[in-house]
């Protein structure tokens, strides 16, 4: 149980971190997550099919593709002629990129075991204890988190948050908040594409069929928010002293990803062990119910006054 939780954690944590930036900094619930995640995976498939020596070259191209996909979403939303809804622009890009990813991979499912001699991660961790790989990757995630933490705490990251929440401040100074939105979406989707790359290399499988990364990622963010709000609400006495800094904001996707992968593996364990319910059919339903419960609990225990609009979710 712990193994399945900890092996899923690095992927989910990076993807949630990317999504969280667009959700809470730009107030943009970005449905492009599915697209950039898929691009991150299919880049691995394409490069290995073309005979690349390792998957590391794909690691270079994945964030670039993710950034392009994010920019397209941003342009659809901010363009003077389209002015598309936030949800619609993201959805449209996710929908369209399935075709492109299919063309890149040639098929909807590629097992990477046939390329095992090319996979560097596979060769490094071959023969080691099963816990070594996820723990090393988790430490890597922590490094990425520190980097992003530093970036988002700099005035540049804070400016992104201003672009999302108080765009008039930017506009009056002669800056265009739309540029910040496009830049921010490119950045967040580049991070998510790295998560897609990690998913393909860890699971040794490129699968374009499981559409629905957005649910996992969103659930992680919500659970993380709930847990942190509850903890801060319990430990700080007055509402005025509660600090909700950028540091705490960025903590919640990581905490949430860990909690969510634990919940998920726990549900799977119970379902398959005690209740003998067919996994594939009922798992989604149970997870949806768990998320519903968390959302309900979040409303009860929220330590913060909810007057800031935070992306509508």
């Amino acid at each position, binding site marked *: 149980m712990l193994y399945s939780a900890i092996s899923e954690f690095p992927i989910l944590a990076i993807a949630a971190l990317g999504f969280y930036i667009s959700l809470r900094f730009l107030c943009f619930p970005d449905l492009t997550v599915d697209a950039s995640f898929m691009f991150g995976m299919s880049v691995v498939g394409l490069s290995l099919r073309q005979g690349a020596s390792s998957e590391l070259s794909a690691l270079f191209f994945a964030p670039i593709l993710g950034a392009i996909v994010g920019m397209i979403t941003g342009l659809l939303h901010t363009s003077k002629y389209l002015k598309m809804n936030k949800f619609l622009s993201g959805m449209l890009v996710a929908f369209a990129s399935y075709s492109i990813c299919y063309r890149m991979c040639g098929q909807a499912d590629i097992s990477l075991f046939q390329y095992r001699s090319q996979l560097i991660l596979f060769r490094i961790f071959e023969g080691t204890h099963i816990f070594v790989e996820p723990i090393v990757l988790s430490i890597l995630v922590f490094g990425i988190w520190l980097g992003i933490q530093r970036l988002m705490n700099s005035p540049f990251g804070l400016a992104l*948050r201003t672009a999302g929440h108080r765009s008039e401040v930017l506009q009056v100074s*002669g800056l265009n908040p739309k540029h910040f939105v496009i830049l921010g979406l490119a950045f967040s989707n580049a991070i998510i594409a790295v998560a897609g790359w990690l998913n393909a290399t860890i699971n040794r499988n490129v699968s374009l069929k499981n559409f629905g990364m957005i649910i996992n990622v969103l659930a992680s963010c919500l659970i993380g928010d709930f847990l942190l709000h509850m903890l801060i609400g319990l430990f700080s006495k007055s509402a005025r002293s509660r600090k909700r800094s950028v540091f705490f*904001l960025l903590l919640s996707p990581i905490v949430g990803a860990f909690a969510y992968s634990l919940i998920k593996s726990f549900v799977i364990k119970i379902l398959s062990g005690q209740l003998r319910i067919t996994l594939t059919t009922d798992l989604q339903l149970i997870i949806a119910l768990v998320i519903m419960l968390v959302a309900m609990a979040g409303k009860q225990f929220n330590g913060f006054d909810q007057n800031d609009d935070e992306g509508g979710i």
Partner: protein
Amino acid sequence: MKTPLLKLEHLTISYQYPTVQEAMIIDNADCDIYKNMAHFLQGPNGSGKSSIFRSLLGLQNEEMKFIKLPNNERRISGQELTKVLRLGYIPQFPYQAMTPSISIIENLYLRSLFLESRSFSNPFQWLSKALSKKHLKEFINRLSSLELVHNILDGRYFDRFQTFSGGELQILILAATVSADIDLLVMDEPTAKLDTQNKSKFWNSLAELLQTKELTVLSTTHENSFLSTSIMEHNNVLLKIENKKIISTG
């Protein structure tokens, strides 16, 4: 001696509602804004004060070309004006200018960073300044050297902005905006939400800042008494909206 900073020409503001006939609020009005003078725009509620400001700052959706700069033949819109002049804007409610989850000093620093953005030749230069935290320390030193800021902040630089009162925030925003080199300070009823004590504090702070620095101010306000007491020594122009025109006196 009056040197004009900009001129509003043929300004027309009208609203169209589905059920009511088109309502013309301002009809073909002209008005001069002079350098280093304080302009106070007055008029009853709904006379279009805020609309004038919003179009001047480029926040209105439709583009109206009604601003004329002295050295330019062509009229420009508010959006273009924000790219030519540095406009410091103080909104009616201080919370409208504050980004949530960011400490007070960072909020103020962002303001001055945005205002300074035009002095950089390319966006990468701006980005490199935005990515480093070194300039934040300089900003704190510069700002807290002002006495009125020092009294309010009192070392609480990294507190949430919600822990400060509306009046304190408004004065802090004013000080941070003025400390960045701006061409025109635009204030939309900056003291509307403040009590009498904070109101006089705010106008006195403005008078104090105007003594140390030459500044063009354009503001709406209902408080006549404060205008006559605190900013007497400064050249000021009273602009009144009457019969859909702007009439300037003083």
